[in-house]
């Protein structure tokens, strides 16, 4: 079965196209997934910086009520799983989840260890290193980002409360967004790619198979039938074919014609005897 002409023509094409399309799709999906996750992290970083800038005025004036109100309102936004601000020691000062306000964070926890892994905590991190992906206590997948709140001249020069100019970081904002939209988009994209790949495979393999059948296998089968029937002694005509096979068919026709005339001649001689 695998050694037939049909199999030899179809199997290499099918294996090559299927393998190549699948490898391309997996690599493309992997690249697009990375790009989409990076885009979400970039969006989240911008959002975190917007929050830090929006809360700066309230922080400078030590207006804790406004600050708590801003954090609460952001926390009610659709897709925002948590927002919290903690001080340099890791104590949660403000949080959209009021139950965790006043609790101390572990420096070895995800989101903290990235800066606190060395003896001296890092003051800056790239966007991608600030991000982490985890399932929260509700079982929802979350992409969270931590942004440091830097000590700026208007902080340490303000009269209201004291920060030394040497202190680089005053605290950290931690915001977590639901990863559900990203996961949904990735699933839709994956399904579309699977459908697209199946269509490409069907069109390519089906097209090659149909054309081979129409222009090679059917003419060959007709030629085989024709020669077999001629061997059995019956006389019939074969239809015209495409260029290359027509040459073969022409040669077979000529041979069969000569064979038939020889047969008739032999039959006539036998009758005369």
């Amino acid at each position, binding site marked *: 079965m695998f050694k037939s002409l049909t199999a*030899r023509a179809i*199997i290499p094409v099918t294996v090559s196209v299927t*393998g*190549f399309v699948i*490898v391309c799709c*997996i690599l493309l999906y*992997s690249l697009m*997934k990375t790009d989409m996750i990076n885009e979400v992290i970039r969006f989240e970083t911008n959002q975190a910086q917007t929050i830090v800038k929006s809360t700066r005025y309230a922080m400078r004036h030590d207006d804790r009520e406004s600050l708590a109100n801003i954090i609460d309102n952001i926390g009610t936004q659709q897709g925002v799983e948590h927002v919290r601000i903690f001080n340099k020691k890791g104590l949660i000062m403000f949080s959209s989840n009021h139950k965790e306000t006043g609790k101390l964070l572990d420096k070895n926890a995800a989101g903290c260890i990235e800066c606190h892994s060395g003896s001296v905590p890092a003051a800056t991190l790239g966007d991608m290193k600030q991000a982490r992906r985890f399932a929260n206590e509700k079982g929802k997948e979350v992409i969270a980002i931590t942004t440091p709140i830097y000590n700026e001249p208007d902080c340490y020069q303000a009269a209201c409360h004291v920060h030394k100019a040497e202190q680089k970081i005053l605290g950290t904002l931690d915001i977590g967004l639901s990863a559900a939209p990203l996961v949904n988009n990735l699933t839709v994209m994956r399904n579309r790619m699977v459908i697209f790949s199946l269509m490409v495979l069907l069109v390519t393999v089906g097209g090659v198979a149909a054309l081979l059948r129409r222009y090679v296998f059917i003419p060959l089968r007709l030629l085989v039938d024709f020669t077999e029937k001629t061997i059995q002694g019956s006389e019939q005509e074969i239809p015209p074919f495409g260029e290359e096979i027509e040459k073969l068919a022409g040669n077979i026709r000529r041979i069969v014609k000569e064979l038939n005339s020889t047969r008739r001649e032999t039959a006539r001689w036998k009758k005369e005897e």
Partner: protein
Amino acid sequence: MEKGGMNRPVEEMAPPGFRQNHARLRKETLAKIRVLQRKFTTELLSAVLFLLLSIAALYDFAFFPSLPESIRAALGRPPSVNMIGALLLIYVFSGILLILSRMMSGSGKYGGVNHVGFIAGFYFFYHFSGKLPENFWAVFVAGVTILGLESYHLWIYCSEEIDKEKEVLALLDARPGGQGDGD
């Protein structure tokens, strides 16, 4: 049929010099058949090696001890995932074209173990860049495609060549219709 007719073995009718040549030719033909059978077995061994390698890669080479930091540092930074992906794509594309061209020309060349080496390289590069779990299936499908095509090509090639050698054996044994045993 009369004595010395067509169905008697060639050896009985021929002079001694021809008999020697005949025996040598028979031996050579049998040796060629054995080489062809071994060629296909080697290709199958490459496929088995690839499967074992893929099983290890599926578990991110967790069975093996991790490379010491000093060796990792000496090796330098791994290439970017995008670059490994682009190389994998070029490798699959050129590999398929090469095997299809061998099929077209009827060449018996094959690169089974070399391909396993290339695929192992991709697995290791992805492993050291920490992105093997995401890209495992891409490398695996690439390997299955290349080795599958190569095995199919080699199987067809070896079968055809063995059939030809069996025809020669049948001719030497004066058994018409390719009925030689070819062992």
